[in-house]
């Protein structure tokens, strides 16, 4: 069986997503969890580009624009996330995600 470029790209992005998910679930360091989440996000960005490039009738540059938007949002999200990490560190003197459970009901 031979795979089309689109399928190859999708497989690659799925793999990237799984790596990110595993990282986010397995690590207890909050920064590394954030890193995993960024990987998952970039897997989604890859899909945008792939569907634009190899998909059916495509509008010029629409996929690229989606990706750029997504990256911009991701940057903002990362900034918020890192700020939260700093706040958590100030609070509990470490950044273990398991320990940050004081707000539970």
């Amino acid at each position, binding site marked *: 069986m031979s795979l089309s470029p689109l399928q190859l790209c999708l497989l690659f992005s799925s793999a990237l997503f799984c790596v990110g*998910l595993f990282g*986010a*679930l397995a690590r*207890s360091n909050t920064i590394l*969890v954030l890193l995993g989440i960024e990987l998952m996000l970039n897997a989604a960005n890859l899909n945008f580009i792939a569907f634009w490039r190899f998909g059916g009738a495509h509008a010029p540059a629409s996929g690229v624009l989606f990706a750029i938007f997504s990256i911009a949002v991701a940057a903002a999200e990362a900034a918020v996330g890192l700020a939260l990490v700093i706040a958590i560190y100030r609070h509990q003197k470490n950044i273990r*995600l*398991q320990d*940050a*459970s*004081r*707000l*539970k*009901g």
Partner: protein
Amino acid sequence: MSLSADLLWLIPALPLIAAVVGACAPRGAFKLAAAAAIAALTGALLLSCGALATALAAPAAKLASNFTWFDLGHGAVRLGWLIDPLTALMCVMVTFVGLLIFVFSTGYMRDDARAKQFFCFLSLFAAAMLGVIVANSLLLLFVCWELVGLASYLLIGFWFQKPEAAAAAKKAFVTTRIGDLGLLLGLLWLQDSAGTLLLYDGGKGLLEPAVLAGLGGSTAIGLLLFCGAVGKSGQFPLHVWLPDAMEGPTPVSALIHAATMVAAGVFLMARVFPLLTPDALTVIAFTGAVTALIGALIACAQNDLKRILAFSTVSQLGYMMLAIGVGSWVAAIFHLLTHAFFKALLFLGAGSVIHAAHHEQDIRQLGGLRGPMRVTFATFAIGMMALAGVPFLFSGFWSKEAILHATHAWGVSQLPLYTGLAAVVLTAFYMTRLVAETFLGAPRSEPAAHAHESPAVMTVPLALLAACAILLSLLAWPSPWLQLLLDPSAAANDHADGVGLMALSIALVALGLGAGWAMYGRKPREKSMSADPLAARAPRVFAFLAARMKFDELYAATFGRAAYALAVFADALDRHGWDGAVRLLARLGRFTGLVNREADEDGLNAGFDATSESLRKTGRAYSRAQTGDAHGYLLMIAFGFVVLVFAVLFGGAR
């Protein structure tokens, strides 16, 4: 220089600003408050002169400037300002006399700890009084009228540490309020029947022929308006507050309770003169005549320097009302103007004496002040002669003659003329007594012996007022200028047709002066304890007059007692009648409450409690799912995502 009606509001506004400055100034800022008050009143005086120029340019034109205060749906409430010769003359008089009294006050009140408030109140009074004068709407006039009453209350009670002053302030306020109630009712009635309270409104105002013709049978309205004037101008039977008002500082007595405020009633009557029917005028004339006589009689037997002047004021206001009543409102205004000057002069002279004699006001304790207080004596004598009506040179003579002639020409009755002539004798008599007791003979007490002339800031206003007391004769003589200016239609009757009456009144003045001189001046009192010559001759009459004809006692025995009985009855009704009903209701309420509570706790609350408990349990169960473990949440999301993917792939959901 002239002033348009649109800018007339500046005249009362300036003193109002000064009052605000005085109110906001720090506690000890006496100089600032005084400077603001004097500067504002100077400005108002200049503007008033402008208004007078405007009025003189067109005496018959009623220059009004009206504006809408607020809208009521059908029809708006409108207020306005008015320039006519009456307004302009009153403005000039009030600002000029007021200015001199303000200057005098800087000397008189210098040592008072609350002098700052004093000037603030004085400015407030000036603003309100000028508002009364320039108002073109009876509503606006009424508002300012009440403000004037407030300022009067504040100033009479200025030394409220003295119980008498506090009581006098209360008495003045309550007594004038009785009259003001009548005035208010009159205004409501007028508004109802005429539909407007504007005086001049381009043909639609109250005093213009179209509306006047529509106001049939307005005797009651006129009498109700007169009620306000009775209260404010101290007419019989509401005159009792005015003598007590002398508890205030002397400049206040001069400004408010002699020159301006008490004349506001006369001004009001002159202003609404076209509204008054012959019946109403008859009542006014007799009230005025009675007041003139009673005031003069009581003044003969008083021993307090200021109280004599106060009763004299009552008497002179009676004259003015008499003039209104007999139809010569111009004579009333003329007497108002001249009286304002010479009575302010007399009061300020009295203030100078009191200041020098360390607040000794009893004329039996004074005496011999002619030597040390030359300026005060000379000016006081001029005021006294103007008030007594010494012929030809003094303004009081001409205004009094105008009133007597108008009374003589009155067709209804000659009785007021006789009372007026009697009051002429009495006036000359008691003023001679006052001057002789105060200034002649030898000092009869320690303070009188050490009296010295007051500073220039007090004597210069005296001299200016004295000059005016003489110069104001020019308003009537050699030509009846004021009459021609204010009411040219009635200028026909001049003094020529009444030489006999004039000669009679001159003779009566001479009689009064002679009797006073014979009893008090020829052989002045030697000791403060020796009996009054009049009391020696007619002790019971003298005692009756000295007790002010027992008016206060009469009112206490009638109105006071009736009010007390009413209060006792109301109290009993309240305690036993209404209170019982209220208690019963309260019992009933408590019983209902008890029943409600039982029903609530057993019935309703149990149901709600059960519901709440089950809600709480559910909430607790759900809250257990929130572990606070971010990994757990993420895992659940991933798991859910996988399930979703499988559902999409194999469930055929696409």
